[in-house]
């Protein structure tokens, strides 16, 4: 009887131990051909003929491969690639591609995956994030797609990502309102403010739609403004070497004054900090607001919501003080596709990347997104922006957000251009903001070797 009890106790203990040990054990053996977690996926695996290929053994004995393509929640991208990758599985029956949604494009989710050494095989990255991921990305220099890309993401001499899109920043407006109020496209910052003032005087429209509750919506002003006004494409790199760059005479202060003017004169409506991006775009789309400043990427969103572009036009933000100066306009590449160094199917991932950027795949993609092509020989069909650019020609000002030292100093100083803009907009004194920024920036510059 006693022995029986002991045996029972040992059995229970054994079961518990086995459960815990199996739970804690490595799952590597179960992940053959797939180094990424299956959690949080869009479960849009383009298995196509793959399942049958697996079960019936492919004629060429090719190993079944499953690749994960991680992209943030850009609806048009997700819809396009979810359908398109099915074609790839027809070309390569042993390869299936799973489009995985990355919940945020600020990189927080992927950073956790990076720390856990669990990056998707291919993923979208922002140029500013290359410094974080650079040691985990595969160099792509030898790829044909890299050679034909206009804006390859080159870090420390190696191409680590290829952008799918490039775009410029625009100020969208309703031509009917401009016509009604007898306004013309502003050529300088002062003229831009005058236009806003005149729209306000009409008391019919909110001059500028701004969703300040989502502080990222300040980026055309606070992130790009000081950069373009400096006329220096290496502005960020230089900023990282200055102890106190936020003060009188700086381009930061010029933009800060503009933001303060918009706030104080209620040029963005009665409570721009109380509404978010969605509400701001609704105000613009319903013609309650006359102007909205966003990137080229907004155009597709506007078409989807409004259904036409009948009362829509755009001009570049006039970041200059004299109309006789050249007009620079922030132009940047985005949605860089990179390959994880730890992908178990790096060669297949490279082949898939080549396919993504091949003209027959890339052309419909760029047409769908209404952005500018990044591939030599592939042109985007953008009549709306071609017309805008003819009416208000500009010089592209290329945004370089990949400087390592700037990224480190900015993080150490906990500097967020958009939050700073919201601070100023909410009524904080510019000199106080500058004083605090300079203090933290100086410490950060000294601490980052």
């Amino acid at each position, binding site marked *: 009887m006693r022995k029986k009890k002991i045996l029972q106790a040992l059995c229970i203990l054994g079961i518990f131990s086995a459960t815990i040990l199996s739970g804690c054990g490595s799952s590597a053996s179960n992940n053959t051909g797939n180094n990424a977690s299956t959690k949080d996926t869009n479960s849009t695996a383009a298995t196509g003929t793959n399942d049958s290929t697996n079960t019936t053994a492919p004629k060429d004995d090719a190993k079944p491969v499953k690749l994960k393509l991680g992209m943030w929640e850009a609806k048009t991208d997700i819809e396009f690639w979810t359908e398109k990758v099915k074609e790839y599985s027809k070309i390569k029956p042993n390869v299936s591609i799973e489009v995985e949604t990355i919940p945020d494009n600020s990189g927080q989710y992927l950073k956790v995956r990076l720390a856990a050494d669990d990056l998707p095989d291919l993923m979208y990255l922002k140029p500013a994030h290359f410094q974080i991921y650079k040691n985990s990305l595969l160099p792509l220099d030898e790829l044909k797609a890299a050679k034909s890309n206009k804006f390859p993401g080159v870090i420390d001499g190696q191409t680590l990502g290829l952008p799918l899109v490039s775009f410029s920043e625009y100020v969208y407006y309703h031509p009917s309102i401009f016509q009604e109020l007898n306004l013309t496209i502003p050529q300088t910052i002062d003229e831009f403010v005058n236009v806003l003032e005149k729209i306000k005087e009409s008391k019919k429209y909110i001059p500028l739609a701004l969703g300040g509750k989502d*502080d990222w919506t300040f980026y055309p002003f606070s992130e790009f403004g000081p950069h373009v006004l400096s006329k220096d494409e290496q502005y960020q790199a230089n900023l990282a070497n200055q102890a106190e760059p936020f003060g009188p005479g700086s381009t930061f202060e010029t933009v800060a004054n503009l933001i303060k003017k918009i706030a104080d004169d209620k040029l963005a409506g009665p409570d721009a900090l109380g509404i978010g991006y969605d509400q701001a775009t609704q105000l613009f789309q319903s013609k309650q607001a006359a102007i909205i400043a966003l990137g080229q990427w907004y155009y597709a969103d506007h078409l989807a919501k409004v259904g036409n572009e009948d009362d829509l036009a755009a001009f570049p933000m006039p970041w200059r003080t004299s109309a006789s100066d050249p007009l620079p306009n922030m132009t940047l590449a985005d949605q860089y596709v990179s390959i994880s160094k730890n992908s178990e199917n790096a060669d297949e991932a490279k082949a898939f990347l080549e396919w993504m950027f091949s003209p027959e795949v890339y052309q419909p993609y760029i047409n769908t997104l209404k952005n500018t092509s990044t591939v030599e020989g592939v042109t985007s069909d953008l009549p709306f922006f071609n017309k805008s650019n003819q009416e208000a020609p500009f010089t592209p000002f290329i945004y370089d957000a990949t400087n390592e030292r700037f990224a480190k100093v900015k993080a150490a100083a906990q500097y967020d251009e958009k939050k700073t803009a*919201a601070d100023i907009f909410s009524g904080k004194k510019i000199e106080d903001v500058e004083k605090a920024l300079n203090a933290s920036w100086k410490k950060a510059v000294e601490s980052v070797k």
Partner: protein
Amino acid sequence: MSYKIQQRWVIFSFLFVPVSLLLLFLVYPTLQLFHYSFTNWDGYSSSKSYIGLDNYKQVLFEMPDAWKSIGNNGLYFVIHTLFIPLELMVAVLLNRSIRGSSLFRFTILMPYVVNGVAVAYMFSYIYYPINGPLNSLLTSVGLESWIHGWLSDLKLVNFSLVAVSLWRYCGVHVILFLAGLQSIPQDLYEAAAIDGAGFWRKQLYITLPGIRRVVEIILFMNVTGALLQFDIPFVMTGGGPGVSSSTFGLFSLFTAFKFNNFGLASAMAVVLLCLIIVFSSIQNWIIKDRSGN
């Protein structure tokens, strides 16, 4: 095998799983938290360097925004604390046999049951400046002058958020008080009534001592809830405008993920842990039973 050894085996086997889980999911992460707080780990690199107490120095002496965030947490704490007597009064009223008290009890707990993010979204809509329900209500009763930027006015935003927190958490406090009140034997009240005690004397000498444990729990929940406040400001304002409505938890999150400084964020978490311990201890000392019983 002796009976004593058998007993030990049984105890060991039963304790093995819970203790293992405790070590794995509580003790180990806490130790790691302390470990990271002495490093400059960025959250993703395989290497990290020990930097001694630098992170603590930075949190305590070089981060005014962090202390502003703590101040915002303090506002949640103070206002919630001021509402505790009111919550007790509501519980006392609901404890009496009045018509519809069961419906009230259910209704008052409802906000706590609703998902916090949903609550935050709901109030975002209520505070919406263009045709939002709150502004519409004020307009309809002729109080247009009371309309403000509920989530954009620097002086008002934290009060708007605390109001949401009160709406959500007061109900659960009332229910806990109610449970405490119902655990007090009725014969104590009857004996007091025979001795001629009135309503207020009964509350002072029977009810309050009888619910001391519940008060301790509620005060502890109040401290932890206020200092760990996160979801409401995160969803409704993102800590904005700027960092005006940021709480310490939100500030730590941004430090860790947006600015890639897990070491500093870990030090913040340790500071927060210490604050919770200190405040809870002070509260417990204040309401300690000094009657000698």
